[in-house]
């Protein structure tokens, strides 16, 4: 069983790593997003492998279901990134390599190595285990981590309000462009009407009633 778990872990880790590498190297940004989704799926599978069912389901629900949709929408909102041949490496790519490597080796590796991992006791026989983790997470939210829990609500609200503010700025800008175009069109229509002025035309008077009444008086 343990070797099977190790083999499965290696398979999922390979999938995650390969997908992540494809995400940053592939040219087409939509394909990059799809590779990212594949990487998210692999992480969810790892959670399941650790018997953290709730985290696995939450990973699929939030990252695969929601965050990836957000990323794809963000790509669709941008103007034609796909066609342009963007360079994949900036001149300072080695800084981007050093910083996460340092973070990984100084923060994550020591934590994993020195942390005293406490494995949960196996559930008593005959009693079906609840979806593992959810109950403990919920109890922890209500007790030790109450403040982070409420702060998470504020964070989510701030994210929503921020997006609305940004989106409305965008919409305001578009509306101004629209009214400008309408003004230009209006001016053109007025000029066309003024050129055949001496002959009274019923079609022209029908367009603008105020001018029609002005010509009658």
């Amino acid at each position, binding site marked *: 069983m343990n070797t099977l778990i190790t083999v499965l872990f290696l398979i999922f880790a390979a999938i995650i790593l390969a997908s992540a590498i494809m995400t940053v190297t592939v040219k087409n940004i939509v394909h990059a997003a799809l590779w990212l989704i594949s990487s998210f799926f692999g992480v969810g599978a790892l959670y399941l492998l650790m018997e953290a069912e709730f985290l696995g389901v939450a990973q699929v629900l939030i990252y695969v279901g929601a965050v990836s949709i957000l990323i794809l*929408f963000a790509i669709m*909102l*941008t103007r*034609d990134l796909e066609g342009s041949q963007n360079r994949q490496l900036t001149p300072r790519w080695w800084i981007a390599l050093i910083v996460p490597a340092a973070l990984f080796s100084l923060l994550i590796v020591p934590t994993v190595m020195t942390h005293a991992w406490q494995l949960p006791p196996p559930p008593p026989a005959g009693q079906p285990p609840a979806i593992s983790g*959810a109950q403990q997470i919920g109890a922890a939210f209500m007790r030790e981590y109450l403040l982070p829990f409420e702060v998470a609500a504020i964070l*989510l609200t701030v994210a*929503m309000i921020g997006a*609305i503010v940004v989106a409305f700025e965008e919409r305001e800008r578009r509306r101004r462009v629209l009214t400008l175009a309408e003004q230009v069109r209006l001016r053109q229509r007025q000029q066309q009407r003024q050129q055949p002025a001496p002959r009274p035309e019923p079609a022209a008077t029908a367009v603008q009633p105020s001018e029609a009444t002005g010509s009658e008086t």
Partner: protein
Amino acid sequence: MLANYAFIGVFFIGAIIFPLVPLVAAYLLGPKRPTPIKLDTYECGLEAVGDIRVQFKIQYYLYALAFVIFDIEVVFLYPWAAAYGQVGLFALIAMAIFLVILVGGLVYEWKKGALEWV
């Protein structure tokens, strides 16, 4: 516990094989006599117009973000409901505060007219 996921694994492999079989079979068995008309971009029998990319309205993004936020909210609700028996009334108050903060965001979005399609 892990053995239960063997079924999902089998299902997953089946789901990958199932669409691959007709594609590979069509590739291997089908005759290939391409003409320019056959190779043309096909879209419901109509002549394809414009580029494949269209720029989405920002409205979609607002809906997607609202979806993400309330998706996360539901994910928070689940462990809360699972632990409710252990914690009791205090949990109700804590979750009420959580929900009121989030509903505040929704009210703002509604008042601002972000939910109206323009």
